């Protein structure tokens, strides 16, 4: 039995249908990422679970307790849900010290004073903020504020923690360290977590399972490996990773194998959609699965180098082939001569 069950949630905001029957589940101790482009309704969905916004219809059940049921008219207010919420902006109370910020949830739960002190100290220690208890939020760096926000949400052992873009306000370097640290911490606490993010690498790194959201609908629900390597829809394939995309026509179908052709090119790939021979189709291949080859062969396209940008650990190259533009990553600068580009059949996904 899943801990959290969200069923067919609908929400309109300002005349726009933001959530269109979104459903998902969250298992005990699992970290789920709600991933999607900006404006896809991730925050709205998270706020519906938190009880800060009420959906128009649907059902949200946590551990057998109905938090929301549109048809039965049940709404448990946010303060009665006992969830931990970390805001994108952290929302630390500027008039309270770090200690007071973290202790607040315990105070509301009428925990004895000395126990509060112990538990806050323990959490701050665990999270690497020892000695900061008496500071005010504005005296902390962005990374420290983020940790305080997290401490504040976990200190009272919430049934679930919800994180809205928790790392998006950190600078790039800090963000990568924080990923490792955040996943470690949540696992260590054995708590179930929902994390909203628009950053796919963050979702891939932290989550056990990813829900890919588009326009208020779940496009795909899978583990990070699966969603990256076996995307179900064109949107999922395009959203994850950096890709080359070819528009063409299905020329031949052999079970899952298929041949796609366009103006001056043809490639074998794997059919992921339900196109038939003669249909228009989109073929997607990840940049890291696009290679430079020595000479002609199957699934190779001849192309001319157009530009090469030096990115430090690799070169980002743009090629022009008859009607196609291709990008690929090369460890060294390609010479200025005609090239062959190889797309492995197993890596070309056709929709």
């Amino acid at each position, binding site marked *: 039995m899943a801990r959290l069950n969200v069923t067919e949630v609908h929400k309109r905001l300002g005349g726009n249908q933001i959530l269109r029957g979104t459903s998902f589940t969250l298992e005990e101790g699992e970290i789920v990422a709600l991933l999607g482009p900006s404006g896809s309704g991730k925050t709205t969905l998270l706020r519906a679970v938190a009880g*800060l916004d009420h959906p128009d219809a649907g059902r949200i059940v946590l551990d057998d307790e109905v938090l929301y049921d549109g048809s039965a008219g049940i709404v448990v207010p*946010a*303060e*009665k849900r006992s969830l931990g919420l970390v*805001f994108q902006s952290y929302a630390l109370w500027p008039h309270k010290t770090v200690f007071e910020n973290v202790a607040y949830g315990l105070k509301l*739960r009428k925990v004895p004073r000395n126990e509060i002190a112990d538990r806050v100290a323990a959490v701050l220690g665990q999270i690497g903020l020892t000695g900061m208890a008496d500071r005010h939020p504005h005296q902390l760096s962005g990374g420290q504020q983020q940790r305080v926000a997290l401490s*504040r949400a976990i200190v009272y052992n919430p049934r679930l923690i919800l994180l809205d873009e928790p790392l998006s306000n950190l600078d790039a370097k800090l963000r990568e360290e924080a990923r490792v640290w955040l996943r470690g911490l949540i696992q260590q606490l054995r708590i179930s977590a929902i994390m909203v993010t628009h950053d796919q690498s963050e979702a891939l790194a932290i989550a056990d399972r990813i829900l890919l959201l588009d326009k208020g609908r779940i496009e795909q629900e899978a583990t990070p490996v699966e969603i990256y390597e076996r995307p179900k829809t064109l949107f999922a394939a395009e959203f994850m990773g950096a890709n080359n995309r070819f528009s063409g026509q299905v020329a031949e179908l052999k079970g899952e194998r298929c041949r796609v052709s366009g103006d001056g090119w043809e490639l074998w790939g794997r059919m992921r959609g339900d196109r038939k021979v003669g249909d228009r189709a989109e073929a997607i291949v990840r940049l890291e699965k696009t290679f430079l080859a020595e000479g002609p062969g199957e699934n190779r396209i001849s192309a001319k180098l157009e530009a090469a940008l030096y990115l430090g650990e690799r070169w980002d190259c743009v090629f022009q082939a008859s009607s196609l533009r291709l990008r690929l990553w090369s460890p060294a600068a390609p010479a200025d001569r005609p090239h062959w580009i190889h797309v492995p059949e197993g890596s070309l996904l056709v929709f």
Partner: protein
Amino acid sequence: MARRIPWARLSVVLVSAVAIALPLVIVIYQAFLDAPFFQPSAKLSLSAFRFVFADEDFHRAVWTNLILAFGMTAIAVPVGSAMAFLMVRTDLPGRSWLEPVIVIPVFVSPMVLGFGYIVAMGPVGFLTLWWQQHLGPIPWDIYSLKSLVVLAGLTHVPMVYLYTSSALRSLASDLEEAALTAGAGTARVALTISLPMVWPAILSSGVLTLFLGFELFGLPLVLGDPQGLLVLPTYLFKLTNKLGVPSYQLMAVVAVVIIAIAFPLVWLQRKLMGATSRFVSVKGKGQASRPLPLGRWRWPATGLMVLWFIPTIAVPLAGVFLRSVVSSWGEGVNLTEVLTLDHFKELFEYPNVVRGIVNTIVLAVVGGGIAVACYAAIGLAAHRWQSRWAKVLDYLVMVPRGMPGLIAGLAFLWVFLFVKPLAPLRPTLFSLWLAYSVVWLAYGMRMVSAALLQVGPELEEAAASAGASSGRIIRDVTLPLVRFGLVGAWLLIFCIFAREYSTGVYLLGPGTEVIGSLIVSLWGSGALDVVAALSVVNILLVAVGMGVALRLGVRLHG
């Protein structure tokens, strides 16, 4: 668990609705009676309307009032918006200390200013005598309609200034810099870019000035009276004397006329204010604004400020101060020989004056604090309330704007006479406090709402998800965060309550004396020495409040 009914919020709506509607209803009801409402013989009738509308004096008052309202608007709007541009957008010398000076007329009772004009520029005023001695015949007649219009216009410049400057402040300076780069001079930038961008704000301050023109009481009472120049509020005030008996129904008719003029204007102003924020939110990048160079306009611009400052503030205030410390004056009197503090000592000989000073302080400090607490309660009731009642409340608090202090005071007098359980409270400060709080409701709510708007919703949501009920959220998060804003509101309401004069006029009685309304009644009795000393006390009281507010960095603009 189903959605709960927000009893606390609803009861705030109910209480405010009663406090706001009751005086209004009573005035309208009284206007349609043929005798004072407390007389058993009073019947519904239009006779009061017929009487007033047939009165020659009423026609003249309406006419004079129209000239006054439009005339003062025509002066205040251009001067006020030019000053706002100079102060906010240019490198005018001395900008930082000028702002508190500009808003002085907002915080000084028009009675005091009017009194200052008389003692300085009246037929035997200090300035008049000096002018006649050194420059020849004086080119002004303080008792003329022309003077009244000019002085009312000049003293309302700060109103326009406050609205326009706060709109200009939120305008990004890159819009102006783009025009500068394109080759426009500073004056051109002002006329073609900055001021047109804040046009709705200017317009709305114009409408505000216009309807303040129909509320004007102190200045026309002091300046217009000697020549029998009446405007609607002074006509209302004189009605009592006119017939010798309390002709409540006639007063109510005039009050209804004033309210009927004011309401549409209040509504229009509110619409325009809404347009202002839409207009201003279309701005460029919100970086810190750099002032535009005035160049050779520097001195003419400074000249404009001085030209406004001297007649509007320096002359009347100097007049009041001087008048309060001399025993006599006139042609050939050497002022240094007649200096005295006797007038201030004299204040203590009148028990009602002493009570008035104490009452004013109590009302401004304690009453102001309680009023701000009530405003905060209303603000919190509407805060993040997704309900049509929040909208109702929003409109409700605007209603008292359309009720000038004089009329509100009269209406509350009737409320306390009419509603029997309230009658024992009439001779207490409570009656004044209630009238003051309702009269200044819209003003106070503006400050409170501005403070509440600063609180990010996430700070409150964070508390909710930590488990705090709405009451706890208000106590632990919202109130601590708006504390400074509320203290600022308290200080400004202190100044406003200390200054207020017209609301207390009809509520004045033993036990409810306040400085403002005492000045009105003492002025009527001709006790000018006491008026002068009392005016100085009043100014100093307000100055203390302003001083503290400025020290704490309270923003005087909205």
